[in-house]
């Protein structure tokens, strides 16, 4: 560190003057050149305002503040977008209070210190450890975001080829009708049949509209940031996505949809779901090089006893289940065991990235659901996604706005 480098910024939040003073002295021992720039707050509210308005390299916060406790503090500064607080947090707790420490860690503190045995070493080690852990999590978060972006672009790329084809067909129809009109008008300008002109114009209009619709659907998938979770009908989501898929898959793959009659309200990010479905469908196509059948079915399933239904690990409750079945090559058990790993692919370079199912898995976890795979070589593959059915009040509210 050179003399010019700014000192790391530390915030100490504690309503006890003596305790704040203690931490500060451990960080910047009197008589030495200060190693940290220390800011102090004597209540949780001021602490929160500071953390949210300025950048700190680390925050020390007492668990027991007069206006709130440590968990409340952590909750208030937590950023759900990044999945982290704005800065690493070291929680200070009284002695013999293990539950409090665990709670602090669970709600996002990186480390804790017991107030009874503070020392310069303990404080500095906790600081260093909290910063390292925080940086690790932030790095992981950035990597996830990047993965996410790559996966979305992959899905878009897969769709673009099919959509370009569709678009050129639409344009062919428009150009053909325009050509006919030009011919008519130039060969016989005095005798133009209005009915004929109207018919041509109507055809072009309807074709242009289906083009606009195609663009609209594609836009949904190129959107950078995904939507928040909202309550949607799973069957409708599938129908929307299918419109995009028919063309790229339709060349060799027959698609059958068997949707549950009842509506299936789920609280999900519909764009993420669409991406997951696209990736599974493209995988199915790739597994059926000589054509075959893709079946997408939905149903409502109530799980009372996960073990009895062979769904060990699935929490009891009501689920909307979507099953994606292909009649393709299937997978050997050693392949099936690894498919959800990021970057695991059996496809050649330029053909697979190994991200599709990893991201589908991420989506499912985020939606508090489950994904299972059933496959054996030569017998095709079925993926099932279980999504918790959203309470019906929420559906009513979502439809109301």
């Amino acid at each position, binding site marked *: 560190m050179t003399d010019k480098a700014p000192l790391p910024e530390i915030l100490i939040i504690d309503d006890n003057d003596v305790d704040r003073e203690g931490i500060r002295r451990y960080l910047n021992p009197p008589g030495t050149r200060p190693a940290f720039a220390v800011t102090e707050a004597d209540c949780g509210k001021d602490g929160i305002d500071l953390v949210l308005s300025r950048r700190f390299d680390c925050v020390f916060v007492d668990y027991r503040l007069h206006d709130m406790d440590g968990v409340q503090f952590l909750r208030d500064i937590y950023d759900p977008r990044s999945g982290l607080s704005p800065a690493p947090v070291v929680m200070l707790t009284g002695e013999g209070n293990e539950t409090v420490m665990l709670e602090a860690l669970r709600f996002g503190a990186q480390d804790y210190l017991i107030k009874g045995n503070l020392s310069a070493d303990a404080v500095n080690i906790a600081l260093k450890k909290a910063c390292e852990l925080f940086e690790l999590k932030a790095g992981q978060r950035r990597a996830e975001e990047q993965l996410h972006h790559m996966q979305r672009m992959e899905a878009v790329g897969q769709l673009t*080829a*099919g*959509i*370009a*084809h*569709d*678009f*050129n*067909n639409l*344009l*062919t*129809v*428009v*150009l*053909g*009708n325009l*050509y*006919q009109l030009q*011919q008519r008008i130039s060969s016989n300008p005095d005798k133009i049949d209005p009915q004929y002109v109207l018919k041509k114009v109507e*055809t072009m209009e309807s*074709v242009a509209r289906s083009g606009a619709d195609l663009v609209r659907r594609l836009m949904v998938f190129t959107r950078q940031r995904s939507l928040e979770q909202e309550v949607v009908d799973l069957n409708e989501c599938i129908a929307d996505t299918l419109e995009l898929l028919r*063309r*790229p898959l*339709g*060349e*060799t793959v027959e698609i059958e949809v068997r949707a549950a009659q009842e509506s299936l309200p789920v609280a999900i990010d519909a764009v993420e779901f669409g991406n997951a479905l696209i990736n599974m469908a493209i995988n199915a*196509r790739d597994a059926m090089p000589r054509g075959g059948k893709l079946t997408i079915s939905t149903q409502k399933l109530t799980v009372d006893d996960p073990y009895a239904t062979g769904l060990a690990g699935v929490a009891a409750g009501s689920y909307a289940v979507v099953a994606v079945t292909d009649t393709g090559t299937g997978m050997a058990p050693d392949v099936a065991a690894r498919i959800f790993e990021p970057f695991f692919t059996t496809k050649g370079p330029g053909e697979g990235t190994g991200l599709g199912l990893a991201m589908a898995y991420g989506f499912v976890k985020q939606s508090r659901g489950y994904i299972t795979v059933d496959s054996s070589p030569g017998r095709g593959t079925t993926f099932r996604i279980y999504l918790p059915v959203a309470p019906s009040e929420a559906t009513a509210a979502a439809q109301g706005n």
Partner: protein
Amino acid sequence: MAGGTKKRILIIDDDDLVLQIICEVVESFGYDVTSAPDGESGLEMLAKGPLPDIVVTDIIMPGLSGLEVIADVKRKFPGVRIVAMSGGGGSKAGDNLATAQELGADATLAKPVDFPGLLDILKDLSR
């Protein structure tokens, strides 16, 4: 073109609106036009005859692809001229039109179809 000497053209495309408009326009050029909605029925029509002078075929179609149609026509009916059309896309990236040419297509046309261009090609091939 004088009656009786009209050239026969078979047009194959799986998109019904595209097939319809190409048929209409080509007919208005003065050709005798027949059409098929996929490769299989196109080849059937060729086998049954009467043979067309020119086959205009799309490339990306469900079932038999246009490339397979071209290969088959070249083998069985070497006298029939071929125009390949493609709008890109499909599962394997790559230049379908270049492949069509290698397989023996006499002319290629990228979609969206340029109709005056198609007319020129047909004129050329019917000489």
